[in-house]
């Protein structure tokens, strides 16, 4: 050991450790925006990453095509059963859309909580460490992305943008354990049943919808969407389906487990939803937009 820890080296090591500990504790309290040096690194690394990721997606997609092909028969049967409902539903949707537009015109409502501008993006990386679930997209400030925007796939909501640089955006998935991550949500069929998506059960792989009224008639199988009332997300993004309803720890409110729409296994194409109604800052700590440190309020 003596040769390994000469005095000079020991001092260097100690100083290094102190600097690192300071850095860690400084950056552990999540931040809204990356500093210029960080942005630069993210953009440069992100560029290289997209060069590697895009061919990979291509290959994975081809593989999936083959897999799909093998399941064609089964799928065809299932789809045949559903297509009969489809025409009727489509007609109804069209009628409702028209009606909605007419009513909006009548009442002179211009903006709606459910309006958003979609921005398409490709996932270029997923946090390989996978402790907090993050993905990185190839769209950033230059493409109109800003922090706190909702991110979704064709299936439904998957997370929100936490950090943007010029050409990349970091997305925290809804499956992340972050006590300050809340999404105001309601039952799609009945908007009077509302609560907050708070937390994720890692074992069941399901989201937890808390603070439901005790008298709320929430049932298994109901669909949960965002309410847009948190001030950040647009209204009506599909979150998932209720799988179980119980009462919470104190028995004061109800609690429901919600199975997320997407299984988060392979994410490659996503959509960023930029809400048209201005977003609130989320500073008061009630909205899902609060940029909280993972370190705060650990249970």
């Amino acid at each position: 050991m003596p040769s390994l820890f000469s005095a000079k080296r020991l001092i260097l090591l100690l100083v290094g450790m102190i600097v690192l500990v300071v850095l860690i504790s400084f950056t552990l309290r999540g931040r809204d925006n990356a500093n210029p040096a960080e942005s630069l690194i993210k953009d440069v690394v992100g560029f290289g990453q997209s060069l590697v990721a895009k061919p990979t997606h291509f290959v994975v997609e081809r593989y999936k095509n083959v897999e799909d092909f093998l399941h064609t028969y089964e799928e065809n049967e299932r789809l045949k059963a559903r297509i009969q409902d489809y025409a009727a539903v489509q007609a109804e949707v069209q009628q409702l859309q028209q009606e909605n537009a007419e009513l909006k015109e009548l009442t002179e409502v211009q903006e709606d909580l459910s309006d958003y501008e979609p921005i398409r993006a490709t996932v270029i990386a997923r946090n390989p460490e996978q402790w907090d679930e993050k993905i990185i997209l190839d769209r950033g400030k230059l493409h109109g992305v800003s922090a706190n925007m909702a991110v979704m796939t064709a299936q439904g909501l998957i997370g929100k943008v936490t950090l943007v640089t010029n050409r990349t955006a970091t997305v925290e998935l809804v499956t992340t354990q972050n006590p300050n991550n809340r999404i105001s949500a309601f039952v799609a069929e009945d908007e009077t049943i509302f609560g907050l998506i708070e937390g994720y059960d890692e074992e069941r792989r399901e989201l937890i919808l808390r603070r439901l009224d005790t008298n709320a008639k929430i049932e298994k199988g109901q669909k949960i969407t965002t309410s847009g009332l948190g001030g950040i997300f647009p209204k009506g993004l599909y979150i998932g389906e209720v799988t179980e309803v119980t009462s919470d720890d104190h028995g004061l409110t109800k609690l429901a487990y919600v199975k997320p729409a997407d299984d988060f296994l392979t994410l490659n194409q996503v959509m960023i939803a930029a809400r048209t109604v201005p977003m609130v800052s989320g500073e008061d700590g009630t909205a899902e937009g609060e940029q909280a440190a993972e370190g705060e309020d650990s249970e």
Partner: protein
Amino acid sequence: MIRVLVVFVAVFLFYMEPVFGLLSPVSIGQEFYILVPRFLLIYLVFVAIYYNRKRAILFGVIFGLLYDVFFIDIIGLYTFIYPILIFTSVWVMRYIHLNVLTLSLLILLLLAGLESLLFVFNTIIGTTTLVFDEFLQLRLIPTMIANFVFVAVMGWFFKWLLVQRYEQKYHVNT
């Protein structure tokens, strides 16, 4: 040529880790298994042992910093972990007969230790609610298997590459 290749492999592995991460978690039946690729770290330990310790630690700091900034957003975590693990492996290897097999075993042991420490760290800061048994079953064992396969496949190549570089740099023929 080989000189460039040594750096190139490191950069390549750095970029491959998140791509591999895109394929994880893997679902088998009802369970979802998380594989954490530690390819770069494995390579850096090989660099430290077969080529140059200082170079490896330098790589460790640089790539650790990039890793922190790009993925983790906790700056300093991997900047710290990479050099420390490289240092530890060099120190332990002084007392063990060196060959690819013992080195691979040592790396796997260190990785298991690292994952467990990160589990403790993440439990403390509240990013995970898993209990140890679940962690062992869903994370640690799949991760060890994945990295073992990686070492088994790439270990000999790393050794070959780095020994070549070593001989080229110090003009020795062993």
